[in-house]
């Protein structure tokens, strides 16, 4: 504890030296391929959820293990910060750039700059929406549409024999690939059961506070809610709080389906407050480092690499929980 406070105090002291500098502190220093080690510039979305922090840690740890020098930046969920970070990596002449795009569109210009500088780009976790696929070498990540489908298919099976199932949806950050795709996959899967209806859908920005606030409003504006479908665990956890405050039992009165399977979510699943979680594996660091080495050495890599994922019911969560590190 005291170490953290010391760190905080040190941070305040450091801030004196930062007067007037906005955010981007990684503008100086040369990368470079002179000494043979690979330098990777990674522009992370932020740390908006437990999933993301596990993803960050996996990338940092596996870079160290693979002997790759990692330059890391946190965009705090802002596209302009990510573009700034990528530009600074281009200036620093890193060997490879990897990033998880905050939103799907608006990347062509900066990716073209990277291409002209002959720096290969790997997308992780989220895709970009661009017609020119030569702008990046490969896309490593989950299939979000598939995740949405898995969630929808479980609900369809669960709703067999029921006459009416009202679903409210807590979307992720508006415009983000996982939010768009998980919505799409879910909508596609529930077409199989006409009694399932999405009665309200709003963004909770992938955060607990957002999920709680939106769910509070949903509970008041929709008299009959049977199922909550949240695009990540954190929003689902926020929704649980809102449901409890309304005097209902999460997991029983209102069923909850989420995506991600981080530890707090798995705990709630094991406790019976969440009913079903579709896994979205954040530990893609080792795969990313392998791809980076191949790309830098000029080897061919597949255009799309999908991470391995599963789903969890309450029973499976109890068994898996002790092994969850994130």
């Amino acid at each position, binding site marked *: 504890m005291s170490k953290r406070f010391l760190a905080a105090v040190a*941070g*305040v002291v450091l*801030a004196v030296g930062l007067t007037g500098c906005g955010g981007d502190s990684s503008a100086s220093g040369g990368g470079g391929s002179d000494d043979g080690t690979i330098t990777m510039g990674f522009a992370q979305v932020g740390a908006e959820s437990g999933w993301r922090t596990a993803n960050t840690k996996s990338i940092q740890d596996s870079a160290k293990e693979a002997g790759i020098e990692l330059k890391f930046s946190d965009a*705090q969920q802002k596209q302009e910060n990510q573009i700034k970070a990528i530009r600074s990596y281009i200036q620093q002449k890193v060997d490879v750039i990897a990033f998880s795009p905050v939103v799907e569109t608006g990347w062509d210009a900066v990716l073209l700059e990277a291409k002209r500088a002959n720096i290969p780009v790997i997308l992780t976790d989220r895709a970009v929406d661009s017609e020119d696929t030569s702008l990046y070498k490969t896309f490593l990540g989950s299939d979000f549409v598939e995740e949405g489908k898995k969630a929808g298919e479980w609900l369809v099976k669960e709703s067999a024999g029921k006459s009416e199932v009202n679903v409210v949806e807590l979307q992720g950050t508006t415009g983000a690939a996982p939010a768009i795709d998980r919505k799409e996959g879910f909508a596609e899967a529930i077409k199989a059961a006409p009694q399932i209806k999405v009665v*309200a859908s709003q963004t909770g920005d992938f955060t*607990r506070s957002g999920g709680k606030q939106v769910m*509070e409003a949903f509970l008041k504006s929709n008299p009959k809610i049977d199922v909550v479908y949240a695009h990540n665990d954190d929003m689902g*956890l926020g929704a649980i709080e809102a449901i409890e405050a309304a005097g209902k039992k999460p997991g029983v009165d209102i069923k909850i389906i989420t995506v991600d399977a981080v530890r707090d979510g798995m705990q709630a699943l094991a406790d019976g407050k969440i009913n079903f979680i579709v896994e979205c594996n954040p530990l893609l660091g080792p795969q990313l480092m392998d791809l980076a080495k191949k790309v830098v050495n000029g080897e061919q890599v597949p255009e799309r690499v999908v991470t391995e994922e599963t789903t969890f019911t309450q029973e499976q969560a109890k068994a898996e929980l002790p092994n969850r590190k994130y």
Partner: protein
Amino acid sequence: MTSTRPLDRFRASGLLWPLVALLVLLAANAVVRPSFLALRIQDGHLYGSLVDILKNGAPTMLIALGMCLVIATRGIDLSVGAVVAISGAVTCSYIAGAGDPTGAGAAFAGMGIALALCAVLGLWNGFLVAVVGIQPIIATLVLMTAGRGIAMLITDGQIITVRNPAYRTVGAGFLLLPVSILIAVAVFALVALVTRRTALGLLIESVGINPEASRLAGLRARTIRWTVYVFAAICAGVAGLMISSNVSAADANNAGLWIEMDAILAVVIGGTSLAGGRYSLTGTMLGALIIQTLTTTVYSMGIAPEITLVFKAVVVIAVCLLQAPKARAVLLRRTRRRHTPPDPDAEAAGRPSTHTPTSAMVEKVAQP
């Protein structure tokens, strides 16, 4: 221009139009969904959309109160969002690391440490502004950027979840009404009492109108400016406790993100000029309520997330236009208006200039 009629006095206070905006928003909700105004007792506390607005609006109200005093001294505090994150991070890390993570003792100790640290951060802001003389927008930008990093250091970048009933009370608890709104109203009453029943409010306004003249007139301008930054940071700290306790977790990255903008907007909607001087605490509270009502409206009317921001912007512009006498005159095609000489500072900030007995007195103080 001194009027004794209550309605005229009310109109002159600048509270009429924010109040109208708030009532229109609520009425629109009630029309779309009549149950919006419904209240019932659930587990011994009030339950309904209006209660949600109060509960979720409380942090913005508190921060806006602090911001209001800072703006009255012609300053601005951009670091409140970062202070919110730090406050929650410190408390949750302390509670999670305490011997008894569910005990009330851990919760109170954690909150005490967090608020003390927030006061220190406020001292730092005030020091840069009042002593070193850095422009407030730059001085507080330092902590705005660095603060979130400090919060991330404290939490190791993780979302820290705590299960502490005593801590939960601050943001999610109820004493018939949400505890958070009770805290916010108590702070409002205290600030109103201290600044309006003593000369302090007048001194704050005079510092905002002309710091140098106030100093020459014998005011401790530096101390006053310093104090308002400390107060703003403590308000942000308490708001941080509410936000993190509402979900029983500290989220260093998202807690209080962009809340400084909401707070500044609340102050402006409430009729306080960004150029400093005359301020309105009641208006600020109304402004914060309008902002939260807007958010709740979006959720409960089911406005698509893609157009939410545009919707909010349209409402905010409408409220600001309603408040500007010029825009009102154009809109209502009214020409029968008494001309008041424009105040260049207020004009620059795009705000109407309103002269009341109070500000006239302040100007006397300010020009010895």
